[in-house]
């Protein structure tokens, strides 16, 4: 069952890359939501909110898809 050192290293690199990509998308989403929250108090929706959300969803689907 145990992986060779090379296999472990490649798993570690793959895992790190995937985690950092997901982290980046998550941070973008937090930024977008905070921008949304800042604007809605004035009754406005941030410009291109839907478009940016769709782009984030697309990126997330590519990363998360089983």
């Amino acid at each position, binding site marked *: 069952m145990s992986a060779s050192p090379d296999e472990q290293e490649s798993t570690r690199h793959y895992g790190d890359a995937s985690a950092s990509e997901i982290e980046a998308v998550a941070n973008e*989403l937090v930024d977008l939501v905070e921008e949304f929250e800042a604007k809605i108090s004035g009754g406005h929706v941030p410009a291109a909110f839907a478009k940016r959300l769709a782009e*984030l*969803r697309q990126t997330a689907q590519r990363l998360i898809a089983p």
Partner: protein
Amino acid sequence: MPFSAALRKSLQDRDSEAPAEFSRGDSLEEVLNRHLLTVERMGGDDVFTCILLLSPDGKKLSYGAAPTVPPSYCRASEHIEVGPRAGSCGAAVYLGRPVYSVDIETDPVWADYRDLALLHGFRSCWSTPIRNSEGTIIGTFAILHRTVGMPTNEEIEAIELITGHVADAIMWSRDPHYFIRRETHRSGKPLLSLVSDNQKAQDPADRLLALARQLELKAGDLDRYATQWESEATAMHVKSAAQLSRKLVASIMAQIERIRLLESGQ
């Protein structure tokens, strides 16, 4: 059922997959079935596993998952009244401890279900209560065999391990915040500190956990905004943002599990 590092590794893999499975809409039964099939694959031919869930009033057990137990057996024992003669599972809840029935044919705890079990060829049953993080019993995990026998110490250790993983899956299905709370508890750092220290956190798992917590909070806020917004189109986009937040949380929690596995060298 041989207990080995392989079983531990397989269950940890299942733990890392479960959040994403729940997030994409899989039912608790589907997730638990995968847990149990993993155990059965490693346990050999004479291992039939099931999970029974306890009703909120603590009086009845019903099937949560039983991937290879004959459907006719499950139908005939669909709602088990907790009690000292209600089979190993009913008795395990009643007594609040594991009940290992070495021989169903002679064990008094099987008085109410003996004929049914023997008719299906089952001769022994080892049942253990499943407890939530507060220690309350929420169900049972049982292994049925077609042969008589007592579990070995290794098997008891394996059963405890399996029961812990099953409890996590059940708790997650009932509370999507559960894994975040569990990870926060493991890291020993308060949630608010994790959020405010987000930028400074050096440990990748801690940083991801803080981000997951932040996304969960945002998802809750977005749900609230969605109900207040007059424009249907905007409300739909806001709901969609909340859903995306929760999907990312599930994915982040899976990544944290993987990081923890790598760190532990397993």
